[in-house]
């Protein structure tokens, strides 16, 4: 059994989780050309290093980020999306309580796959 250390539920069997694709940021909806959208949609990271990925705990409906090595399958770090400064620059600054509860829309927007 492979264990996923869930930031919300603690260590759980990985079969309780669904892989949700690479963590990327959405191109500018108003201005991005088709080429950039194609890049965003189809060209995911496929190297042999550490990838930053969305994972979803099905039973608790909780999305989080995991940093996982794509060769050894080692999960190096998992954390709540609010801790990611590239996704939520404001949330990571002061209000720690608010930061643990990211708005559902904000998380959803980033889930692209």
């Amino acid at each position, binding site marked *: 059994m492979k264990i996923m250390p869930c930031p919300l539920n603690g260590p759980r069997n*990985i079969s309780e989780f669904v892989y949700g694709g690479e963590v990327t940021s959405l191109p500018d909806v108003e201005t991005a050309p088709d080429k950039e959208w194609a890049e965003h949609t*189809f060209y*995911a990271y*496929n190297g042999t290093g550490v*990838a930053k990925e969305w994972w979803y705990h099905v039973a608790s409906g909780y999305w989080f980020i995991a940093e996982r090595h794509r060769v050894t399958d080692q999960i190096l770090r998992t954390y709540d999306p609010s801790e990611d400064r590239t996704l939520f620059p404001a949330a990571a600054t002061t209000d720690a309580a608010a930061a643990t509860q990211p708005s559902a829309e904000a998380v959803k927007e980033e889930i692209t796959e």
Partner: protein
Amino acid sequence: MPFGLLKYGLSNNYPFEKDADLPPPTALKKRYDVVIIGGGGHGVATAYYLAKYHGITNVAILEKGYLGGGNTARNTAVIRSNYLTSDGVKFYAESVKLFRDLSNEFDFNIMYSKRGQLTLAHTDAAIRGFRQRTEVNKHFGGKTELIDPQQIRELVPTLNMNPGHQPVLGGLWHIDGATARHDAVAWGYAKGATQRGVELHQLTEVTDVIVENGKVKGVKAKQGSAEHTIECGIAVQAVAGHSSLLAEKAGFRLPIVTYPLQAMVTQPVKPFLDPLVSSPAFHCYVQQTGRGELVFGGGSDPYPLYNSRSTLELKEQLLAHAVELFPFVANLKLMRQWTGLTDMTSDYSPIMGLSPVENYYLDAGWGTWGFKSTPICGKTMAELVATGKVPELIKPFGADRFSEFRQVNEMGATAASH
């Protein structure tokens, strides 16, 4: 004979048979007209057709392991063309036709065995989908029928018609469905190619692709600790499972994500299962090999990884489904299990043809549908190398389709996962 044996027994040199299927290894040359990276089925098939139809024999196949030892040896050897899109069906149907004559053509038995392939429908929606696939298949010359439960019972009397409270409502009966020995396909092509002068270099890993002014100039390769720089006019990459990594060395990215795919085989039993049976709803397919073993396969792993490790979860899930379909196999013991790497594209079609680098051709994105396309892939890639023009049959599969939003949505690609 006994004296000959004694002589070899006392000699330091390993004797090379005069009529061996493959010639002894030679030293790498400085330059080849064509370098094929990857000595799996696709690579050697490309070399074979280059030599046979186009007279191009100054060709080197560079293989980092041994001939056909990568994903060619790890698939479940299913040959079929019951796909969904017209582009897909045309392409795979051509491949199925070529497979039939390969044993004769090679003078080497690939153990081709036409069994028919049966895909089960457990819902009305699946029946509707199958009806469409039947018509597309017939239109492009394939032999596919939509059959009812009674016909299924006659074809596979041992099948549980009411598995897991999801009764079998009908089936897609693909009469052209077949299987063959996957290693032998690679060996046969290699034999034919090397007889015509192609060089096969095993244990030769390509470490870099040399590109100058957007044009491929050669490759760097490693044999043990020896480094070689090999010039070439044209290079073809056929490295299923590592396509993204090699492309990166050539300086571009591919719209591929690599997932492991696990399969397994049981101890041999008496023949009872003639057709290849698959159930998309149960994410599982089952077939009996010529030796009597049952092969179980399913979809790719649930998340990307470059690792041929094995997981108990996937085996339990897959076998639980297989046991629903054939309850009496529950007591069989598994003999082997293995994992291959599948280069998945988002539309379940391959990436073939031109690349951003001039004279560097792609044969990638073979996900879970690579083995069955080996002959046609070799033939069309050879034509591309020889003429520099992308053959009609593979035009829809160009890498540029992703940036132009004209994907070939092949939902019939994996018998198991849709």
